[in-house]
């Protein structure tokens, strides 16, 4: 709960929301709601990140927000509830009229978390989808997730919050087979643009042959201190390639800040390097470029042009150098592209196989990098 949201009594939540709505109507705001979004942040350091995600969502899709903030380090017991109005985007073509949305904020110490589902459930908007945005591995949470899971149309989770990625991948593989609901792994969604780009780059039978002869890949990603596992998207991307191309995991090594993951293939070994860079233009953890080399000496350099939602590709062989060209690389960190990825895509077989592949990696070596 933000410091400016006044605390209210739990039985008054609906009354206070109605009062806020009336005030908003007086200001000519329009109220709209497409779904209920329940957000759970277990660690205070994740709150800002999740709040930014909420703002991104609200920018495009008005919804009722229920923001649950746990504080695992709290030194006293508490349970605070507040309500507020959030402003979603402007109504297009309507002379600047704005859309207001309800937000219910709940902050609790660990001892009080068991009460939270009983506060959330009555305030879910009926007949509309319910999305859970979980700032931790949802399957590791026994206080709230099990109670809300049956109402959820989709669970969006942030694998980056997991303490142990290897364990997370293993748990997720088990749960993917058991769960009936739709799931979204934010980090998988955030590399969807690179997966699409690579599928386009290698879209012809001649290029599929090149894929069989890959020798090395360098994935450069933006490393900042904002994330616990800043290389997670690079790991997903290389894990997806490895699983699609049927590589066999060999080992992981580290040289300074660079991580090298080695694979066997039927023809030759492949080395994937995860190389950090620092960019103020890119979101933390975002991939900025790829360098792909085959055993025949064909080289692809793929560099993101962030402002243009494109990547520029320079391809060369030992004999010739092609004209550079561009392929679409939409910014999936914001806007409608982000919304489509997290709320509408189905986690298919590629994700499952990717988890299988990356669950073999020794993360202790990576996380020390």
């Amino acid at each position, binding site marked *: 709960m933000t410091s400016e949201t006044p605390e209210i009594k739990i039985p008054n939540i609906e009354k206070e929301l109605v009062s806020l709505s009336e005030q908003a109507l007086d200001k000519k705001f329009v109220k*709209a709601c497409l779904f209920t979004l329940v957000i759970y942040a277990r660690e205070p350091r994740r709150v800002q990140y999740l709040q930014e995600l909420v703002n991104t969502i609200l920018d495009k899709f008005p919804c009722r927000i229920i923001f649950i903030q746990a504080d695992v380090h709290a030194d006293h017991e508490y349970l605070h509830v507040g309500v507020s109005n959030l402003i979603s985007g402007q109504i297009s073509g309507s002379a600047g009229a704005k859309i207001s949305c309800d937000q219910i904020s709940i902050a609790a110490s660990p001892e009080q978390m068991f009460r939270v589902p009983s506060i959330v459930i009555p305030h879910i908007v009926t007949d509309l989808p319910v999305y859970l945005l979980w700032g931790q591995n949802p399957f590791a949470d026994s206080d709230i997730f099990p109670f809300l899971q049956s109402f959820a149309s989709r669970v969006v989770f942030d694998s980056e919050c997991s303490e142990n990625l290897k364990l997370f991948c293993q748990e997720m593989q088990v749960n993917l087979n058991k769960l009936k609901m739709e799931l979204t792994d934010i980090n998988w969604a955030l590399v969807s643009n690179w997966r699409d780009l690579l599928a386009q780059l290698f879209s012809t039978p001649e290029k599929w042959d090149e894929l069989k002869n890959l020798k090395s890949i360098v994935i450069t990603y933006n490393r900042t201190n904002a994330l616990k596992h800043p290389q997670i998207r690079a790991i997903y991307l290389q894990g997806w390639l490895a699983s699609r191309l049927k590589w066999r995991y060999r080992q992981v090594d580290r040289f300074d800040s660079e991580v090298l993951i080695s694979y066997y293939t039927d023809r030759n070994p492949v080395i994937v390097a995860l190389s950090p860079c620092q960019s103020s233009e890119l979101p933390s953890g975002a991939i900025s470029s790829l360098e792909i080399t085959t055993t025949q000496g064909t080289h692809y350099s793929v560099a993101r042009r962030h*402002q243009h939602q494109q990547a520029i590709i320079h391809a060369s062989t030992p004999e010739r150098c092609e004209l550079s060209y561009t392929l679409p690389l939409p910014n999936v960190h914001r806007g409608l592209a982000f919304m489509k990825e997290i709320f509408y895509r189905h986690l298919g077989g590629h994700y499952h196989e990717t988890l299988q592949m990356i669950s073999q990696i020794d993360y202790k070596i990576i996380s020390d990098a």
Partner: protein
Amino acid sequence: MLSSSPANPLEEPSRSKKSIDPCIMVIFGATGDLTARKLLPALYNLALEGQLPSHFACVGFARREKTSEMFRQEMLDAVNQFSRNKPVDLEAWNAFAEKLFYHRSEFDKEEGYKSLSELLTKLDSQFGTKGNRIFYLSTQPSYFPLVIEKLHQFGLVYDVNQEPQKWSRVIIEKPFGRDLTSAQQLQAEISQHLDEKQIYRIDHYLGKETVQNLLVFRFSNSIFESIWNNRYIDHIQITVSEDQGIGTRGRLWEEAGMLRDIVQNHMMQLVCLVAMEPPINLKADAIHTEKIKVLKAIRPLPMDSLPQNAIRGQYGPGCIQGKEVSGYRQEANVDPNSKIETYAALKLFIDNWRWMGVPFYLRAGKRLPKRATEIAIIFKDAPVYLFQKNGVKGEPNTLTIRIQPDEGISLKINCKIPGLSNLVQPVKMDFQYGSYFGALPPEAYERLLCDCMSGDNTLFARADEAMASWELLTPLLERWESEAPVDFPNYAAGTWGPKAAEELFDDGRHWRLL
């Protein structure tokens, strides 16, 4: 898993996109309004959002003397003024403008096509566009056959059977002919040089988000589809209302009129989408097939009782939103005694099982009080109206699909006013696209150009659709041309059209007040 995957090991079936081939787009009539207001802003927005093929170039072809550099500057100004993404991202524009060229020629000069061919070959090697071509004919309709003939003569359009490795497509702006005979003649002329698969008859209404949503609305909401018939629907009104006059289009309008400009294409397409049966799938042919069935089932207009079924009008001077505006005959390049209609209203019947007896009222007008395009489905009254007071019945339920502005859908229902009496008040359940999906949807031309580049003609009119529509309206056009109106101008600008338009209705029905 890999064995069941598509041949490309990296392609995820659920993520596969329309493939857009490299290509060059040549716009004939590139100095016209359409290019500046719609086509270039659409191409720029596609480029900005990474939707253009990576190997792409665009050539403007027109008669005015200018260089590519001048053309780029003019188009930059146009994009600055008309693009939905403003201000222009100069870096993105510069990258796009590098692929933008101007080619000056008369439309009938062979040297112009010869040098165009040389330019396109050069651009192919410069931009890797692989010989694929889109020719956008944004010229006066009389040039369509000539331009297509010349394109064929100089090998710029390909024989689909002989050159399968590259493609050429021609987008033809409306109107496709002036009447049935000229449309048939045009079709005969262009089909000498083009296969039907290469012809894209554009109707930008079909690219609008709300129009596309009509199919989703009808065929994914079973509650509406089950009452979408003559048992429950009393009548349907389709309105295309413009508050603007004809502006600088005086000369063109004098040759066209409302029936040709709006009714024959846009409105008939809307009728099709409202009235068609569910297609067997969403492929282009399946949808076209259902639309043509509707057009063929429309009852011909009865020539012996035309005033009860078709009304025309022309605006005189008046006031729009407090501002005085001139009449049609006072507009630039308009005959001061013009007999051309700026308003048309029709009553149509579709003689099939679903729609027998349900009138479709269509009206389109210039200089009406406001800009609004909508489809209204007016349902029948309840069989016994229990809440009648003083002989006054309640309002009929009305489902309104607003196409522009404020795209959305509303349903009017009757509701009890709180209190001891049984007073009834109509209320609206309203869905506004803008309120839920704040982002501005792509412009219709963006969607349609993208579809053409990927070879999808679902949202373009097929030849038989254009012919069926002309077949229906040509007798009316001929009658109107042979019998000059005696009462023009018959409505003042800023009013809802001629009084006679009310005479289309009987049984207490009336035009909706928008």
